């Protein structure tokens, strides 16, 4: 159970995302949007995921349809960011997408392929 101080801290963190940044995307209205839906703001989400390497679309013109490729991109994002892999826009995923971050792409990276070897030792 969170202490009152911790709850206040969480509330403040959420508030930061909403009030402080006119250039950054607020994806909170996309929580629990389902695949097949056509919702305003999904194109922004696709642009965000494209920016960090999750959507391969040379045109860079994105629709507001929550389609299969977007679900796959969300799953990969969740995997790379250590979230439960659901392919859904759950609260934890959307919250993380709204946090400030490094501008370096998350994809096109080489995952340590010696992991099993290291684990065996």
């Amino acid at each position, binding site marked *: 159970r969170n202490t009152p101080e911790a709850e206040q801290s969480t509330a403040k963190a959420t508030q930061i995302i909403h009030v402080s940044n006119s250039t950054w995307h607020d994806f909170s209205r996309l929580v629990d949007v389902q695949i097949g839906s056509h919702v305003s703001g999904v194109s922004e989400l696709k642009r965000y995921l494209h920016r960090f390497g999750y959507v391969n679309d040379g045109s860079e013109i994105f629709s507001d349809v929550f389609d299969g490729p977007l679900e796959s991109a969300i799953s990969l994002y969740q995997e790379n960011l250590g979230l439960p892999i659901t392919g859904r826009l759950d609260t934890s995923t959307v919250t993380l997408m709204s946090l*400030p971050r490094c501008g*370096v792409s998350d994809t096109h990276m080489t995952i340590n392929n010696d992991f099993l070897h290291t684990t065996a030792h």
Partner: protein
Amino acid sequence: YTYFNGKPKWNRDTLTYAISKTHKLDYLTSEDVKTVFRRAFSQWSSVIPVSFEEVDDFTTADLKIGFYAGDHGDGLPFDGVLGTLAHAFAPENGRLHLDAAETWIVDDDLKGSSEVAVDLESVATHEIGHLLGLGHSSQESAVMYPSLRPRTKKVDLTVDDVAGVLKLYGPNPKLRLDSLTQSEDSIKNG
């Protein structure tokens, strides 16, 4: 931990770095910024056999650090307050760019700072990891995790960060194992 494709790394044991005297902030002194980067570089040099030397000549330095706003010519424009905070390029490019639009802080008074304040040392430590060849980690406690909440400090390398960079460069002969143990404890403590 991850690496950039091809696992690029520096093949030298000393790298020079310079902080731009033109692309800077008006509210932080150059000495403040230098102090922060000295601490950040020392985190990495304590675990790998690479040392970092601060130099004045920006044009000849291996690692070039500066604050830039908006579209600054490298194809990765900054986006104003929060959003993307900084970026750095894989070896042996050497460029480390910080978004000049952020409210950067260099002291430990995180709670007393602006709600959009970002700790410079935390971001510097992360971006130096990129300069050395590390990609992003999926472990939230790691310095190389891509996201950072405003007004938070994350400067201590975790086991994940250290394991990643050790695989690239090998260990610093002076590496203290007790510091790794401490990092492992920090992971357990979340």
